[in-house]
């Protein structure tokens, strides 16, 4: 069994005990434990079920590479699936449950898949489940979905908060082991600004486990060295150090994402749970260490089979022994360290199985001296046991797996050698080299990821760079630190790397399969990917079927596609593939490394942007008043505009009808502040506007307004609005609500990039003003009552404007109308907006004044046949389609869009043109309905001859009215068209003039 030892445990605080639950069962641990170490201390080796076959799964590793120990954690608003137990710090009251089984972890019906595994090889689903057709969606797929999927889906809204942080540094060092610390020191000594991050909660990394007793730096023990250098770095003002912060991804131009887990280990603390750092570093050093490789032998997935390094970690760091009797299987010297540590901790190590005929170096002698039996040239034929290792069968590595011996044990510690963590190096294009000696890929220093300057901006240090022993690691890291500083523009100190000892290891023997000639039955039980259940035979099958590219094999077998992204399985898998294809490993190559290094929370990615600040809401000065007075909001861009002002007990529709009638009969008030207002000034302003608008603006007289159309260079109508000429040099252009920023940018673009010699300045003053439309037959009465300026028809005629004061408010009044009524649009300073609105409402009460919203505005303009950008236009409509030729200057040689409108399809007489539509029965045409002609087109679609662009019930006319685009429309007045609805009905509508109300304009010109 696995238990807590009375010795070791450098990271835990035995003086305190904390409680947590696993699958509802209370367990005890210590501060400093990971969930994994605490589970092992409670003899909980079985922690989950695999993805495909639902095989029992135990803890294999001690860090980010763990493929099995994934649990559901927390409850309700803090529930989270797929938490990795090996990187989850234990806290009091932690609740965890295991995943992917039913009804329970111990008894999972899904395990049937395991006994059927022979019938479910890689890609079997591509070959089956095809007949009968309907079964895929209704039978097969639901079963597959249900049995896959690991953790439970969260149900509630996340209770935590998250944030981002923008950091800029000369040098970023990722990894706080001895290499990272030394690299950071060497870099910082140059005076460069250094940010050093470590994903775990402690500095020092593997060396604190592997090299403490045996080796030294500067003649001091490694732990002492780590203590000293950490203190030195902490004391340097140019160095920032962060624990619990992982380098997640490296992106172009020196952009690095780092994932800081602030409160995962203290869920009750204030502040954000995670912080996502967006770092811009001149140089990045990845000192990310290496990951130990499993060995591929039959039954290597049985709970109790672990990485040799992980077994050491649990003993040294947490004082936990994964097993009482641990068999070691290895192809290199490293695993001997595990044997020695276990033995010294008073645990039984019945056998070391070394695949190398000559065995290892000094460590082997030490192990032997401790009385541990070492078998050379041997391999594990098979591990016995189902929920826990019971014994191993031993054979010759050279053979096919004939069993020579059996050893009873409850744990197996395996080591297949090490793979440098090159993920971050590779994210942005860093290339790799195959290192024959250590059988691993390491960074190719000559082909780094290149930044904006074209020079490399990432370098690796220590084991991550392929330096395999302590002395080499320290030296390599020291050089990396200095080189990075130099590259970042600093002068590194002339200093030598601290002298460190180095172990005399014997060479590793690449072992990709154990035993070498393993029979099919054994290979079919030799796991490569523990989570996704990919076996040696699966990769061999893929190769046989022609999936020769490593990407094909990955996708066909799902090797390396699990939540650990193949940290344990990739290299073994592609070695097996290379062997099957009879080519060297580098010829096969690796799959692409993609961010993030380990999964990061969606919450952290979104950062602060949730709830109220998910997106900006733009508010006019009268926003709060609207909100308090029944506004039914409509988002327009980021603005919110009242769709209608709904009274208690009133429906939105009824409110809209009331607003139309009231405005037509007495007086209405519209908040028009969102309309864009752009000042265009300069000697060339008129000439410039002549290019921007389809009509002639340069001839407009000061004091007058003109309605104008703007097209894109591609000919399509993009915006419209009223232009007022302020003086000889100055115009004020109104745009649509959505148009202000867009059109402002459009103007600047042409001025800066095409006509930069023209003397024109533009300023966006949209938000300087609160603009209120006072509309209706009694509008003038109201303004006269408030007094301050002459708004009579003679003084201020239709399409004129004037500055003055009304009710004591300095303002500019535009005599323009989008409703067909007598109308004044009055602009006051935004800061006066609410007060002005209040004054109008108060003084207007005797005239029956009511505010109205956008829908009322839409209906009134439709009754008048005015087009609306976004309704009559959709980006495919040109002014000519809308009968707006009167607004297109014939005199001008050029304007934006003119040439485009000369293209054959734009001048095609068959283009759909604007008309009014009147339903025969007075009902309202469905929005977006199409008119059909006879027959079908070559693709069997009904021929369409027109469509509805706007449709409303007009309370003024008491019937449905609509505008639409119809082929040859204007020539077909009186014709009745058919519009099939989606409700099965067909609507009949007569083509009429689009002007339904007051065609002579008598109401607005009073």
């Amino acid at each position, binding site marked *: 069994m696995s238990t807590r030892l009375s010795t070791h445990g450098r990271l835990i605080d035995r003086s305190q005990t904390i409680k947590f639950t696993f699958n509802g069962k209370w367990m005890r641990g210590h501060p400093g434990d990971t969930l994994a170490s605490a589970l092992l201390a409670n003899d909980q080796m079985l922690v989950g079920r695999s993805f495909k076959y639902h095989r029992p799964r135990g803890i294999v590793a001690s860090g980010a590479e763990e493929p099995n120990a994934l649990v559901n954690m927390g409850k309700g608003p803090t529930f989270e699936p797929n938490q990795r137990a090996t990187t989850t710090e234990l806290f009091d009251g932690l609740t965890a449950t295991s995943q992917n089984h039913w009804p329970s972890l111990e008894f999972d019906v899904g395990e049937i898949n395991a006994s059927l595994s022979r019938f479910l090889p890689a890609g079997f689903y591509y070959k089956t489940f095809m007949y009968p057709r309907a079964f895929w969606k209704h039978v097969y797929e639901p079963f597959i979905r249900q049995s896959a999927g690991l953790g439970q889906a969260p149900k509630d809204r996340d209770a935590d908060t998250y944030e981002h942080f923008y950091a800029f540094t000369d040098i970023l060092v990722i990894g706080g082991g001895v290499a990272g610390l030394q690299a950071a020191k060497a870099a910082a000594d140059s005076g460069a600004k250094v940010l050093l991050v470590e994903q775990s909660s402690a500095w020092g990394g593997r060396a604190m486990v592997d090299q403490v007793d045996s080796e030294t730096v500067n003649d001091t023990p490694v732990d002492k060295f780590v203590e000293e250098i950490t203190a030195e770095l902490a004391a340097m003002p140019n160095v920032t150090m962060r624990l619990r912060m992982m380098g997640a991804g490296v*992106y*172009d*131009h*020196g*952009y690095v994402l780092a994932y800081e887990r602030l409160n995962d280990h203290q869920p009750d603390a204030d502040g954000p749970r995670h912080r996502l750092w*967006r770092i*811009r570093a001149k140089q990045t050093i990845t000192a990310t260490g290496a990951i130990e490789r499993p060995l591929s032998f039959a039954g290597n997935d049985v709970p109790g089979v672990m990485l040799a390094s992980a077994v050491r970690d649990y003993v040294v760091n947490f004082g936990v022994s994964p097993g009482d009797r641990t068999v070691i299987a290895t192809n290199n010297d490293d695993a001997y360290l595990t044997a020695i540590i276990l033995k010294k901790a008073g645990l039984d190590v019945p056998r070391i199985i070394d695949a190398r005929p000559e065995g290892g170096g000094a460590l082997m002698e030490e192990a032997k001296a401790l009385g541990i039996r070492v078998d050379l040239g041997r391999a594990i034929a098979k591990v016995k046991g189902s929920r826990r290792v019971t014994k191993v069968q031993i054979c010759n590595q050279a053979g096919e797996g004939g069993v020579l011996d059996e050893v009873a044990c409850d744990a197996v510690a395996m080591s297949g050698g090490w793979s440098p963590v090159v993920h971050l190096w590779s994210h942005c*294009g860093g290339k790799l080299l195959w290192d024959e000696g250590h059988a691993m890929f390491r960074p190719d220093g000559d082909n780094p990821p*290149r*930044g*904006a*300057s*074209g020079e490399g901006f990432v370098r690796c240090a220590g084991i991550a760079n392929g330096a395999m022993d302590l002395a080499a690691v320290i030296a390599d890291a020291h050089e990396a630190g200095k080189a990075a500083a130099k590259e970042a523009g600093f002068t590194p100190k002339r200093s030598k790397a601290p002298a460190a000892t180095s172990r005399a290891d014997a060479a590793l023997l690449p072992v990709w399969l154990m035993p070498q000639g393993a029979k099919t039955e054994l290979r079919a039980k030799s796991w490569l990917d523990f989570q996704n259940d990919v076996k040696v035979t699966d990769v061999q099958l893929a190769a046989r079927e022609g999936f020769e590219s490593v990407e094909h094999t990955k996708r066909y077998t799902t090797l390396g596609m699990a939540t650990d992204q193949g940290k344990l399985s990739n290299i073994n898998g592609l070695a097996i593939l290379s062997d099957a294809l009879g080519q060297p490993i580098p010829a096969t190559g690796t799959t692409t490394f993609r961010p993030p290094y380990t999964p990061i929370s969606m919450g952290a990615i979104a950062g602060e942007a949730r709830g109220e600040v998910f997106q900006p809401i733009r508010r006019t000065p009268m926003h709060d008043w609207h909100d308090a007075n029944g506004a039914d909001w409509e988002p327009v861009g980021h603005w919110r505009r009242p769709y209608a002002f709904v009274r208690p007990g009133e429906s939105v529709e009824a409110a809209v009808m009331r607003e139309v009638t009231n405005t037509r009969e007495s007086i209405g008030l519209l908040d028009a502040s969102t309309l864009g207002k752009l000042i265009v000034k300069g000697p060339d302003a008129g000439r410039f506007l002549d290019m921007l608008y389809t009509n002639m603006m340069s001839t407009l007289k000061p004091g007058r307004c003109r309605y104008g159309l703007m097209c894109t*260079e*591609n000919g399509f109508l993009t915006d419209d609005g009223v232009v007022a000429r302020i003086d000889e040099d100055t115009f004020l252009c109104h745009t649509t609500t959505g148009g202000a920023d867009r059109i402002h*940018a459009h103007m*600047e*673009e042409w001025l*800066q*990039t*095409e006509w*930069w010699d023209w003397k024109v300045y533009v300023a966006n003053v949209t938000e300087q003003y609160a603009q209120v439309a006072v509309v209706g037959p009694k509008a003038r009465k109201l303004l006269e009552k408030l007094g301050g300026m002459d708004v009579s028809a003679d003084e201020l005629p239709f399409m004129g404007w004037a500055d003055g004061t009304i009710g004591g408010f300095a303002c500019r009044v535009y005599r323009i109308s989008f409703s067909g009524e007598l109308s004044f649009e009055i602009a006051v300073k935004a800061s006066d907006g609410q007060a002005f609105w209040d004054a109008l409402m108060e003084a207007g009460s005797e005239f029956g004044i009511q505010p109205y919203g956008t829908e009322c505005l839409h209906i009134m303009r439709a009754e008048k046949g005015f087009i609306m950008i976004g309704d009559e236009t959709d980006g495919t409509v040109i002014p000519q389609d809308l009968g707006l030729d009167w607004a297109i200057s014939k005199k001008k*040689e*050029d304007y934006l869009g*003119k*040439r*485009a409108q*000369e*293209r054959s399809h734009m001048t095609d007489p068959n283009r759909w043109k604007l008309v009014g539509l009147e339903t025969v029965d007075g009902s309202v045409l469905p929005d977006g309905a199409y008119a059909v002609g006879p027959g079908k087109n070559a693709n069997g679609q009904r021929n369409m001859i027109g469509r509805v662009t706007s449709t409303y019930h007009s309370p003024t006319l008491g019937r449905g009215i609509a505008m639409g685009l119809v082929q040859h429309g204007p020539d077909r007045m009186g014709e009745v068209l058919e519009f099939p609805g989606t409700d099965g009905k067909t609507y009949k509508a007569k083509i009429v003039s689009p002007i339904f109300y007051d065609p002579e304009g008598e109401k607005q010109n009073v």
Partner: protein
Amino acid sequence: MLMLECPYCGVTADETELSPGGEAHLTRFGPGASDDEFHDYLFMRENPKGVHFERWRHAYGCGKWFHAARATDTLEVFGTYPAQTTKPPQEILDKISAKRPGWTWRDLK
């Protein structure tokens, strides 16, 4: 995540402060131009896998349009310069030639 130096305000701006504006140094064709000329002006783009000249606006900063010489295969930036010009400055062309002998873009080499 690109970073480009705005030649107007000297700020090395994050990509999220900028807005891209497509290919640079296009000649506008208006009324009187042939269908081909107008079509090419509006739609034909070099879209090279390699050296490219493109427009950017320092939208969240000084608001000015500028040009960048950038490689689309490596995202290396050779330089940025104001938009009020019809061709790239010589020193940028020289820099590109030094780094990428034999490069071409339209009639530039």
